[in-house]
């Protein structure tokens, strides 16, 4: 006959205390998110309107909307994605599917990890030297987006690598045994099975790209530009820099305005993420294992 001893009771109490403590820590994670969104909605909500999204800033940037900054951020993110996703995915496919395990591969992996650790302001200085001056792109969307692309490449590579490696090796072997080449295997089996993980990396990249200020402020973002950019060689306004300038440099900005801009920025990131998450869900539902 089993009877709970004093020792069992103590174990149970410890078990309960640990669980409660860890739950508390997890809830603490949500707290900042809720507070940030709450404060932004409470203070910035009143300025939000369609007009705010679709008009130019006026009156020395103290009134009007955020259209050029919103459009500019979309340009920067899209061009950065166009540059970094093909390069990042191709590099990850090589590293995962082709690369022999040797010193060079290890060196490349180390370089990727180090690239991820470089602060964004250092990427900014690199971008100025490389893209603005050396390649003569000038301060332009192209220079800013390429800087952002280099900054986010490690995220894309690492997350793509992980999702490629998550595809069971048996899938590849089965494919090879049927006489398929490596590329056929990758295209028909590995990529379709890992696309949801790759998109997760892209989502992370979008969030980071849209929010960065330092890499774009010297390479392509303008504090003010009255019209929308037309090509990648134009300068552009961007939401993150717009938020910075109206908070720091422009006098007499109504208090709600910066909160409104921050809300638009977060809203943009969330809706871009929602699109990728939608894609991911659809693709994942097709997965057969």
């Amino acid at each position, binding site marked *: 006959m089993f009877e709970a001893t004093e020792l069992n009771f103590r174990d149970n109490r410890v078990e309960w205390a640990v669980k409660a403590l860890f739950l508390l820590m997890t809830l603490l994670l949500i707290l900042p998110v809720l507070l940030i969104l709450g404060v932004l909605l409470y203070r910035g909500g009143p300025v939000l309107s369609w007009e705010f999204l679709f008009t130019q*800033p006026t009156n020395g*940037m103290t009134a009007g909307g955020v259209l050029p900054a919103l459009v500019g951020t979309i340009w920067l993110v899209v061009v950065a994605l166009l540059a970094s996703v093909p390069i990042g995915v191709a590099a990850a496919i090589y590293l995962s599917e082709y690369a022999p395990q040797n010193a060079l591969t290890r060196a490349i992996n180390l370089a990727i990890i180090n690239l991820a650790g470089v602060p964004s302001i250092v990427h900014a200085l690199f971008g100025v030297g490389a893209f*603005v*001056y050396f390649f003569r792109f000038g*301060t332009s969307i192209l220079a800013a987006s390429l800087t952002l692309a280099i900054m986010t490449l490690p995220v894309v590579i690492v997350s793509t690598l992980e999702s490629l490696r998550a595809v069971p090796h048996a899938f590849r072997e089965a494919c090879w045994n049927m006489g398929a080449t490596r590329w056929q295997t990758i295209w028909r089996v590995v990529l379709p099975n890992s696309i949801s993980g790759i998109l997760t990396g892209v989502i992370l990249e979008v969030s980071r790209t849209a929010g960065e200020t330092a890499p774009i402020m010297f390479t392509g973002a303008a504090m*003010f530009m009255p019209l929308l950019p*037309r090509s990648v060689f134009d300068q552009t306004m961007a939401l993150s820099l717009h938020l910075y300038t109206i908070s720091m*440099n*422009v*006098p007499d900005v109504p208090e709600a305005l910066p909160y409104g801009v921050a809300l638009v920025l977060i809203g943009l990131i969330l809706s871009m993420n929602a699109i990728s998450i939608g894609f991911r869900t659809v693709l994942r539902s097709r997965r057969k294992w």
Partner: protein
Amino acid sequence: MNRIVGSLVVLSLAACGGEGGSRALIQNKGSDTLVNVAQGWAEEYAQVDPSIVVAVTGGGSGTGISALINGSVDIANSSREMKPGEISLARNNGVTPKQMVVGYDALAVFIHPDNPAESFTFAQLAAIYGEDGSVDSWSQLGISVPGCDSDEIVRVSRQNSSGTYVYFKEAILGERDFKLGSRDMAGSSEVVELVENTPCAIGYSGLAYATEHVKMPCLSTDDEGDCVAPSVAAAIDFSYPVARPLFMYTNGEPQGAVKKYLDWILGDEGQCLLQSKGYAPAREVACS
């Protein structure tokens, strides 16, 4: 699926392109002192001539000048003259800087509205801000500030890349450096905001940034000199001791769109806009 994503991207980029017709893009970068005026000019000029688009970027006078030297801007804004070293560097790059005075800036000293101080001499300011200055508390100046219990003078300054910082140092401190321990702000409006909320504080920035919540004491160069309150009029006639010209630099004689834009800036409309932002115009203008 790739094709769908691709066409979406192309569509969205095309949608972002917007209105037709050719247009000239002028890149204008530099001084944070001038940036709000430059922004105002760009905003206003879009109504005057929609075929010319002006992109304005701040970052400080040094940023603008180095961009001019590297040929990546059309107009550099600066709140100081280019140094001889910078000019020869520009020449080596095939850039011939052409200087133009677009207005004047008066630096104002700000204190909390409860602070009873009415005037400062340059010597007093140097003793407060300078590296070997002896004044650290308001009582040393014979002032008792209500609400400032610690009596300590909270020195508010700018980060050292700012043209305002450099100008204040040259005008007030001369050869000396700043005393350590000042609160160095990234923007002029932040200086004013901190002083508004801190009874113990003293700060400085362009007159344009003044609000009704701060007090601007008058300044005199020495004990005998007249104490002049900062104002646009006092900056134009140079009776105010801390006023400086504001420059725009171009590569060679301005031409085409840049020339049109600069002519407009120096015209009545541009100068009146500058005056409305709290700076002194480059010449006498009658504004409504």
